[in-house]
């Protein structure tokens, strides 16, 4: 049965279905529905909800809950996500699974509370310190908010790594019907083989979770192990959607809410007889570079649409490797890229 819900609520329900045992958060618009909904649902389910004193504290509470072996998440919006970077770096270094949702708003600084895509760099290039990688999922519908929340927990456990859901205030606030999963996972169970969790050393040697490796060569070894993991994420976890790219002369690349708008613009272009297509990265890291590269055939042009001053466009250019022109259409400050603008850009590029 389909239910009509807001994106932020779908995110919560996806996490609950995935057996999320603990949610720690701090209020910030436009993600306030998440802590509000979780404060009710988690308590009703006998799970853990806690309003932390800051985003720093919240992410470190997630770290603790994860160290104890349970599925845990936090959510915030851009300024709060900046505060979570410390914890994300430690989660990566300590190899702890966790889910962090960023319902992006405009920046820099306090910016505004409108939907935005200005945190792409922070999310995919390592907003925290150190050499780490994190899978970044970019839901573009309310259904995907639900599905990706669930998926994020699976991927986090699979790789013992933090996973970010990077979405924006528009997807967070919009209402659409969603299909929920039939069965919910048990939040008391430890999924995947968690032979590393801290649950007291009864009948075994004490365990240690840390990121500090001071002995000569130890950190390098650890970095190399992480690298292996990141490589397997890169080869196995790339997700994208492509639409009418086979014969496309103009390939639009957009993610999240911008991809929704771009889809309509591409359809309109097709109706007007322009061979346009769309590649929508669903994972922003690992990035669908291979697909974009394969699509970069001579005679084609790329158009990247984002709600920022140009961030993902750099990764698209890297993937295209100079073989095709790459143009950029961006709107910073919390405004949506609009369908007509994308359409007109496609038209102009057609020449």
């Amino acid at each position, binding site marked *: 049965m389909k239910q009509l819900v807001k994106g932020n609520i779908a995110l919560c329900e996806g996490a609950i279905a995935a057996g999320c045992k603990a949610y720690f958060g701090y209020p910030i618009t436009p993600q306030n529905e998440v802590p509000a909904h979780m404060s009710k649902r988690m308590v009703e389910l006998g799970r853990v909800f806690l309003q932390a004193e800051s985003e720093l504290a919240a992410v470190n509470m997630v770290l603790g809950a994860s160290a104890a072996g349970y599925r845990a998440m936090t959510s915030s919006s851009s300024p709060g996500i900046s505060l979570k970077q410390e914890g994300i770096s430690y989660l990566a270094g300590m190899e702890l699974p966790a889910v962090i949702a960023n319902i992006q708003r405009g920046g820099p600084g306090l910016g505004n509370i409108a939907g935005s895509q200005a945190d792409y760099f922070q999310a995919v290039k390592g907003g925290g310190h150190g050499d780490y990688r994190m899978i970044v999922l970019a839901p573009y519908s309310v259904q995907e908010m639900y599905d990706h929340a669930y998926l994020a927990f699976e991927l986090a456990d699979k790789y013992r790594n933090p996973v970010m859901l990077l979405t924006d205030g528009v997807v967070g606030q919009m209402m659409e019907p969603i299909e929920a999963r039939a069965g919910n996972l048990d939040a008391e169970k430890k999924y995947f083989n968690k032979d590393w969790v801290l*649950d*007291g050393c009864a009948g075994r040697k004490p365990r240690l979770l*840390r990121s500090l490796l001071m002995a000569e060569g130890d950190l390098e070894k650890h970095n190399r192990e992480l690298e292996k993991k990141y490589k397997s994420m890169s080869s196995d976890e790339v997700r994208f959607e492509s639409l009418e790219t086979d014969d496309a002369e103009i390939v639009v690349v957009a993610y999240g809410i911008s991809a929704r708008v771009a889809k309509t613009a591409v359809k309109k272009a097709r109706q007007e007889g322009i061979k346009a297509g769309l590649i929508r990265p669903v994972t922003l890291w690992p990035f669908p570079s291979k697909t974009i590269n394969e699509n970069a055939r001579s005679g084609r042009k790329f158009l990247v649409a984002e709600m920022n001053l140009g961030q993902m466009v750099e990764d698209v250019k890297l993937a295209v490797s100079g073989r095709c022109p790459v143009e950029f259409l961006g709107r910073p400050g919390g405004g949506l890229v609009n369908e007509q603008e994308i359409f007109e850009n496609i038209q102009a590029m057609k020449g």
Partner: protein
Amino acid sequence: MEAREKELRKVYGKPEALTSTPHLYCPGCGHGIIHRLVAEAIDELGVRERTIGIAPVGCAVFAYDYFNVDVSEAPHGRPPAVATGIKRVSPEKIVFTYQGDGDLAAIGTAETVHAANRGENITVIFVNNANYGMTGGQMAPTTIIGQKTTTTPFGREAKRDGYPIKVCELLSSLEGVSYLERVAVNNPKNVIKAKKAIKKAFENQVAEKGFSLVEVLSQCPVDWGMTPKDAIKWVEETMMKVFPLGVYKDKGSI
């Protein structure tokens, strides 16, 4: 021979909750004594196999090599948040943090105050050595007025640097707090008292009484630039005046 063996009784030894790893602490450092007291308390309460410790960032960062229990690292100042996360999902575990004054009362002040205020059922061992030991003896929030450190070369001056934070006094007004005591490890008598306080802070957790913190005045001879003997004297003559020993709160005894 057999009769003789029967007469032998173990009166002193390494607590099970301590590993055999030699400590890297400086000669005369208080951390080693405090580690032992924590380990003895864990052993005596029989909770070693369900204890999870949180190591700080500070000289005790390697506490995980010394405590024979499960241990997690935490970012600098965040042990109370990490402990909260662990304790909330596994309330049957005994969770303690071990933190220095920079960790607990500077960068981690918010985490400390709010864990205390929520009455998190955890045990906090707070080592006050009036400076930042690990990074080479800089001013800590607990550095006393006039004390020279590498970042107060002319002595701490209230006008520029503020005043030493008295953690027990500060936290004593919070309703969520169950137990606060300040102790020292400068002589055998005080070590025995410190042990009692630390044990009580763990007992409170077992009895689900809420947030318990023991502040231990601890000597840091190397960064104070003193001999171990003079460092003990400085704890007695200078630190104890600013940080009086005693029980600052005990909800359980009401």
